[in-house]
């Protein structure tokens, strides 16, 4: 059985090295090489390869952002020069990785392991989700969020987001140009967004302080936030306290 693989790597010499090492594997066919996150993600979802060599640091989308957006979950071998946290997460969750520069022996071991998994039809779904979870504590303040809008990928800078709304297992991101769903929890967003800019004003809302025009009384106990697009969001009493300390009402 032949295995279809693709390489997503933004440096030509690194790509050439992978191709060179792969020459010895007659059962692996390279369906394409891609040098940025967008085209790489599109290729995974369309070509549905069984094996992907994935660099972390790339234009458009990082390797980690690609993980979060995958429909089709292939076996993945990460290639990275230096990323302690990512490496720890990979090790803990049985996702293989190659530290640049790597020897052909190390490469062969990694590929053989991946090939075995593919033959045994092991699903990578579990490993991928747990890597994403393991990486969460180490991610710096979110500056952008990558989402899927139909067949397109959008990278949204957090400052463009008016507010987040809890929506079952998803979070709905409201922006001026439309709404997007992201598979994250409100708790996660609260911990990873700049807390001086994004306030959990209610159980179901995290609002961008810069878009709040004014705060009005709703009734004796409750307030509403009026946003720049005139939408009104309920504010709970604990949310009101947070908001007050954030914008010194």
């Amino acid at each position: 059985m032949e295995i279809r693989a693709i390489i997503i790597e933004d440096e030509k010499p690194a790509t050439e090295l992978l191709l060179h090492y792969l020459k010895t594997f007659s059962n692996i066919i390279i369906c394409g090489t891609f040098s940025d996150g967008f085209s790489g993600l599109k290729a995974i979802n369309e070509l549905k390869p069984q094996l992907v060599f994935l660099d972390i640091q790339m234009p458009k989308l990082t390797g980690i952002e690609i993980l979060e957006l995958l429909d089709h979950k292939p076996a993945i071998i990460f290639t990275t020069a230096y990323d302690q946290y990512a490496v720890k997460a990979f090790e803990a969750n049985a996702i293989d990785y190659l530290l640049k520069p790597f020897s052909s022996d190390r490469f062969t071991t990694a590929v053989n392991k991946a090939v075995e998994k593919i033959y045994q039809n092991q699903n990578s779904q579990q490993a991928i989700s747990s890597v994403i979870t393991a990486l969460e504590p180490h991610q710096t303040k979110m500056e952008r969020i990558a989402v899927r809008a139909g067949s397109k990928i959008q990278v949204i800078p957090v400052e463009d987001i008016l507010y987040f709304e809890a929506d079952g297992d998803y979070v709905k991101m409201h922006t001026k140009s439309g709404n997007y769903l992201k598979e994250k929890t409100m708790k996660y967003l609260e911990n990873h967004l700049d807390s001086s800019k994004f306030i959990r004003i209610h159980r179901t809302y995290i609002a961008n302080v810069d878009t709040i025009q004014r705060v009005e009384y709703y009734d004796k106990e409750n307030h509403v936030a009026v946003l720049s697009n005139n939408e009104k969001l309920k504010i709970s009493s604990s949310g009101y306290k947070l908001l007050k300390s954030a914008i010194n009402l």
Partner: protein
Amino acid sequence: MNHPFFKSLQHFLIYSGAWIIVTVIHAAVLLFFYNISISYSIIDGLIFNTLFALFGLSLWYIVAHSRYNKSPMLNGFITHITSAAFLLLIWISLGDFILSLFSGNNTNYDKFLSTALPWRIISGIFYYSILILIYYIINYYNALQERSIREARLNEIIRTTELDLLKSQINPHFLFNSLNSISSLTITNPAKAQEMIIKLSDFLRYTISQDSGSLVSLKEEIENAKRYLEIEQIRFGNKLQHIFNISDKCFQKLVPAMILQPLYENAVKHGVYESTEEILIKTKCTSEKNVLKIEITNNFDPEAKSRQGTGLGIKNISERLKLMFQQNNLLNINKEHNLFAVELQIPQKS
């Protein structure tokens, strides 16, 4: 704590001179307003003012060593009230005692002595306050000077450690990725692999051999920048382009060592790493009126929405320039739609 009036002969003379003037005025007042004989006026003035001058010297230690953790105002006030009372008591009784050794039959003077006590107390409090005030000002001034010396020393330490840090912090990403490229080139293009190893070695050698705070010629800095960009070019191919536009007279000008490297690293990190299009890094140097101007420009992908970094590297450079040349605004940043420009101004010794 060195006593300010014993610090130098000049200070001591100023202190003595002030008291001599006070003594003369004192004696003159007794002579002309109380019609006391000249000898008694001088004796009175000498005894009381010399005593106060001597006691006054010790007041410095009260000012300099008073450190109150709780309510310093109140504690200082209490301290001075008690010390002033104590000093006046000793001063007046000792003065009177010494005077009694000289006592003769001088009716005018005896009459003056019987009314003198309130005046002595008032003048004593006045002298005390003036002295204490002077001591506090000196103490404050000393502390201020000490602090600025300390700050200057700290800044010096910070600057040297920053550069040491720069040296030790050759970006590991850059290093490992370069090694990976070399590893690949050994298979595809051994001659180029060798060229890259030599460039990388030269680059590392230059980076670790620079002394903190030293000045090097612009030529050396630019050569190092070229090495760096050529190494990165092997990784990124045509995506990374660079142009150097430098007039001949600039090459010999002096710039702080390793001042340009972080700027090129920024341009590569935010420009080349994040873009799929060509990125052009332009360097332009001109020299005018003892100032060397260096402008580094790069385009970037405005759609990349990448973290534009913390700007720590740039802040660092700005601080270094400020410390070395004692001038602000030697670094200016200009960011437009898809262009990022940094302009450095390096003052030259005429």
